[in-house]
């Protein structure tokens, strides 16, 4: 067992010291910092710009001042200026001096009519706000024409109480579901990238040792099985280090912005009241998924004889991960679909899809247990077969055609 630790710590430390590792970690940490400070950054870029919109009041009722007040109440970043000459204003818009202009008219059917003209109507934000202000204005005018009291207006505007309640005991409420969806989405991404990145790292590591021929010395002193699993765990440790750094930076920076966590950007991701059990399941499924794919990657890496062939060799594995990810993405919209339920028990998909179900639905514990059990059984099986492929594969040089190489690697490691 002693050698296991030597290989493990060697894998961990030598990888930790490589330039590429340090650089990617720093870049990712910067990315996390930027993402977690998104609200502040957006504010810093957005606040100094006041949008100017001209209003041509053709109603004859002198509505400009009351409309201006309504617009400012809706969005104080829009400045309203009065104007009479449409030709002049249109020129200002084409010269990009002002954002656009609104033509305010009386209308027989609707009472009031607004026409907003701008160079681009792709930015619907201003248009929406102008419309909202106009609606308010219209309501007030109509109300005063009908001699309604303020209280009557409030009564008129209050929507009815409306609620959706799921009857099934294990279903989550719509609100919970939306919140869970954001978190599950982010964590699925983390699992996907983590599994893919670190499994590829394993395959590369094995292939590098093999192509630099240091492997032959290594396997004469440490058994291939010890070596393979020490390497897999070494990289797992490395990934944990990286993840702790990322999440640590993210956590500290989010914590500092806690006040605006429940608004805007973060509300979508449901970070406000993060579900602890979802995160624990994410860690469990990420680790199991990693173990499964890393074992596969180690075998595949052991049969190539040129480093250039690694990508080609592991591409079937990459496809599996991508397919699992795509199914999970489709499943986000409808997590109780039957194809999601079925794939959540298939070992190569379950790390992502069972996690999706656990995060989005209240899955009975026995289903989770079966899925994890199947996953662990597959990992053990793959470990046993994989160790044999690895043992033969590292001694094999020559052409690397996936299936054929795996077959001959197994033959080479045969006892008799």
């Amino acid at each position, binding site marked *: 067992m002693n050698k296991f630790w030597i290989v493990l710590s060697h894998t961990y430390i030598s990888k930790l010291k490589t330039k590429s590792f340090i650089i990617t970690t720093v870049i990712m940490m910067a990315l996390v910092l930027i993402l977690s400070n998104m609200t502040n950054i957006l504010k810093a870029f957005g606040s100094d710009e006041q949008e100017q919109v001209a209003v041509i009041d053709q109603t004859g009722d002198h509505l400009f001042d009351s409309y201006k007040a309504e617009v400012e109440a809706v969005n104080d970043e829009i400045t309203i200026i009065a104007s009479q000459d449409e030709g002049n204003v249109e020129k200002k818009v084409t010269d990009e001096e002002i954002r656009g202009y609104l033509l305010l008219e009386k209308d027989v059917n609707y009472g009031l009519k607004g026409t907003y003209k701008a160079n681009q109507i792709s930015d619907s934000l201003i248009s929406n706000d102008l419309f909202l202000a106009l609606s308010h204005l219209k309501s007030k005018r109509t109300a005063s024409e009908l001699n309604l009291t303020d209280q009557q207006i409030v009564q008129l505007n209050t929507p009815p109480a409306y609620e959706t309640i799921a009857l099934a005991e294990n279903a989550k409420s719509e609100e919970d579901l939306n919140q869970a969806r954001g978190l599950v989405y982010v964590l699925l991404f983390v699992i996907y990238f983590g599994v893919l990145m670190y499994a590829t790292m394993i395959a590369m590591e094995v292939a590098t040792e093999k192509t630099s021929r240091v492997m032959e010395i290594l396997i004469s002193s440490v058994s291939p099985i*010890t070596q393979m699993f020490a390497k897999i765990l070494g990289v797992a440790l490395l990934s944990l280090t990286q993840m702790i750094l990322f999440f640590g930076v993210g956590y500290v920076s989010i914590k500092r912005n806690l006040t605006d966590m429940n608004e805007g950007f973060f509300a979508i991701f449901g970070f406000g009241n993060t579900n602890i059990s979802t995160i624990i399941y994410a860690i469990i499924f990420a680790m199991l998924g990693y173990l499964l794919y890393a074992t596969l990657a180690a075998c595949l890496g052991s049969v190539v004889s040129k480093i250039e062939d690694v990508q080609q060799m592991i591409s079937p594995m990459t496809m599996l991960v991508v397919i699992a990810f795509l199914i999970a993405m489709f499943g986000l919209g409808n997590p109780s679909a039957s194809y999601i339920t079925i794939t959540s028990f298939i070992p190569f998909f379950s790390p992502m899809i069972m996690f999706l179900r656990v995060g989005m639905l209240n899955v009975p514990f026995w289903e989770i247990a079966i899925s994890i059990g199947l996953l662990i059984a597959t990992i053990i099986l793959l470990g046993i077969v994989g160790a044999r492929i690895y043992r033969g594969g590292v001694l094999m040089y020559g052409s690397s055609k996936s299936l054929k190489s795996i077959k001959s690697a197994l033959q080479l490691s045969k006892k008799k």
Partner: protein
Amino acid sequence: MALQIKGVTKKFGEFTAVNNLNFTIPEKEMFGFLGGNGAGKTTTFRMILGLLDPTEGEIVWNGNKIDYASSSLIGYLPEERGLYPKLKVRDQIVYLARLRGMNKGKALKELEYWLDRFKVPEYIDKRVEELSKGNQQKIQLIASMIHKPELLILDEPFSGLDPVNVEMLKDAVIDLRDSGTTIVFSSHRMEHVEEMCEHLCIMHKGSPVVEGKLKEIKRSFGKKNVSIRADFDLSFLDSYPGVTKVKTTMEGKILQVTGEDVAASIIRDLVPKGFVRKFELEEPSLTDIFIEKVGAAYE
């Protein structure tokens, strides 16, 4: 107490890489393992190390099968040289030595000793990819013997080295043998085997064609070389009975004869013809034996 190879055969599918190999390597001795390309040397080494399992037969070292439990007693220099290209010599050797059961401090001390002895102490902090091929080989040899193994397997240890370095590494290997290590080494260079090994084995296409003590192999080979220089025409010797090979040089002839009696009869015939400047009876060289045995097997 020795390394015993008992009736070992290794088949890869239909192909027989090693066929019924039988020999014993005495302890604390250097054993030469010769053979052309693809003769089965590397496969044999891998079986000795336990990396491959023989199809038939067994290999025991001091009565036990070699496995990972005994790896601290074994040293191995593979034919295909390989070290981590990006790793510094220090980290590299210490890692490999620790895997052979040495502790870090001792490994460092030994490494410094060997680098000094090979006159390259400044390489300790260099990355392997920065070193020349010959110097990489020195590092690799250090890696294989730093833990003072009881059994050391060297696959082509001196190939690709200049004569000065060959001598340096040879001395190191001989010192190791004198301190009690059993060494098996393979080579294409007959003179190295002749110089260093008491026992040897010549393999051809998986089968041993010659095996035993160097002196006995030479004696039982029977044929001897006669080298002659004289002031008169020697062409009558080309068809002399008992002469199996004739090589004409600038100064005379080198004959291969079936035995000492032929040499005696030649000299009796030479003396009446004139002045003989040189007449020398030599033992056959290993090269002669190799060419004869392996060459014959080719035909």
